[in-house]
């Protein structure tokens, strides 16, 4: 059974290239929402997450809401096991599939089919086993004959479909997604949602970070609001989203509505 429990989790990045005084002053006065400070040895550091306490239990679909630099991506990377937190403890179980950047590890000269095999390797799936699933995955992508073309000929929406299909092909117990999903077209989003509903009933966890509040309202059951690396609100997506909108204005209106469910 998948779960993730975080206690007082903090993540602090050292910045080694920004050591000069003038740059330090510059950084401290920019409008970025992150916390920039100095650590004990007088190095500049960015406090990306501080004192995060969060329980995500099986079957939950969690939305991460927050402005740029609030710590959404960092939190996803902590959950994925990419960053071991600099403070606090994390206790998690479940096979993780992370879709953080669409293009990661894609070889643009290789065909879609070859890239499916490579991405499978990153997920610890042997190419032999992956080969049995290639057809099933390419069916889901609706890429047609493009699947045998180099990925550099793909549109960005096609790249997303490919990556999503691979990441969800093996019913991950924990699926982490950052922002980019919204770039898919309406038909794809409907299809993607249907697939995710399938494995959520199999008690999986989905954590989705996005600025597209309408998407989050539709897909998620719970939300947290991050601000300067801290959780400032927890609740239903509607509650948290309206608080976020009240704070930053209705930024969401420019986003296109996705197809009605």
């Amino acid at each position, binding site marked *: 059974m998948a779960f993730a429990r975080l206690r007082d989790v903090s993540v602090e990045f050292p910045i080694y290239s920004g050591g000069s005084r003038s740059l330090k002053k510059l950084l401290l006065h920019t409008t970025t929402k992150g916390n920039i400070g100095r650590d004990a040895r007088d190095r500049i550091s960015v406090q990306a997450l501080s004192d995060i306490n969060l329980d995500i239990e099986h079957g939950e679909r969690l939305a991460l809401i927050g402005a740029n630099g609030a710590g959404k991506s960092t939190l996803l990377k902590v959950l994925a096991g*990419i960053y*071991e937190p600099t403070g606090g*403890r994390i206790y998690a179980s479940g096979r993780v599939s992370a879709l953080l950047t669409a293009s990661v590890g894609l070889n643009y*000269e290789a065909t879609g089919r070859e890239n499916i095999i490579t991405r499978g390797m*990153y997920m610890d799936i042997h190419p032999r086993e992956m080969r049995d699933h290639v057809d099933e995955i390419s069916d889901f992508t609706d890429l047609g004959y493009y699947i045998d073309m180099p990925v550099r000929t793909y549109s960005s929406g096609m790249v997303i479909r490919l990556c999503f299909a691979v990441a969800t092909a093996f019913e991950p117990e924990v699926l982490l997604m950052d922002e980019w999903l919204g770039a898919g077209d309406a038909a794809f989003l409907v299809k993607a949602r249907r697939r995710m509903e399938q494995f959520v009933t199999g008690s999986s966890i989905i954590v989705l970070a996005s600025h597209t509040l309408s998407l989050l309202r539709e897909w998620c059951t719970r939300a947290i609001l991050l601000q300067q690396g801290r959780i400032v609100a927890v609740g239903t997506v509607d509650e948290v989203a309206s608080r976020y909108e009240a704070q930053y204005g209705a930024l969401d209106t420019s986003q296109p509505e996705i197809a009605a469910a």
Partner: protein
Amino acid sequence: MVSIAGPETEDAAVVEFAPLPSKTALAWRDLVEGFRRNWMWSALALQDIKLRYRGSVLGPFWLTITTLVTVFSMGFIYSHLFHTATISYMPYLGMGLIVWQLISSSITEGCNTFLASLELIQQVPVPFSIHAYRVVCRNFIVFGHNLVLVPVGVIVFQLPVDWHLLEAAAGCVVLAVNGLWVAIFLGIISTRFRDIAPIVASFLQVAFFLTPVFWPIDALGIYQPLAEYNPLFTAIDVIRAPVLGVPIMPHSWSVLLLSTAIGCAATCYLFVRYRNRIAYWI
């Protein structure tokens, strides 16, 4: 009384935490788990080679040809410079260059173990050691292409073929172990300090001339021990001497194994201590 504690504070008390594994255990798990995924790093290494030589007809065999041309041209000139017989100097130079290429690429590419996989490290959670195994595997694939020249040399220069070649094979295994610690050690420190790679590159250039790769070790006369204890020379010697059918220098194995042990120990310390920082430094 109405409780004022929210549901979250109650949750926090209920959760049982498993004991945290030690840093040493995590580092060890990383190495073992990384090795277990040998199909992954070997496929990635192969892919690196394919990408590097994409569109070229001969692929990595271009390196073999470069070695061949170097051995013939240098072999002719330098055997006269050193007043030795061309027929015995050429195989000496050839084996020296082949092993040196393995050593030097292990060291230069070792600086980029993690930096070259930057995108992967930041997006996909895989054991860090996989990147090091990948570098070692890649270098040995190139080394294998160069080794094609050995049977040619054996026939042309009538080198002996006997059980001593097993000693050379053992030498290759030891070099692979060294390649691994170098890839992790240099990989970590050059991720943190970006000056390391250029420093190492210039060090290697000097080392090539200071190590008996292309010049005979006895030419040093009374200073010969200086070269005998050079770890880079011992690494060449344990592979070259058996192939040429001459005895390995008396200290070569001990110096090589000692430097391997020291290197492994230092790398273990560094890897245990800073493994979880690699993702942050990148």
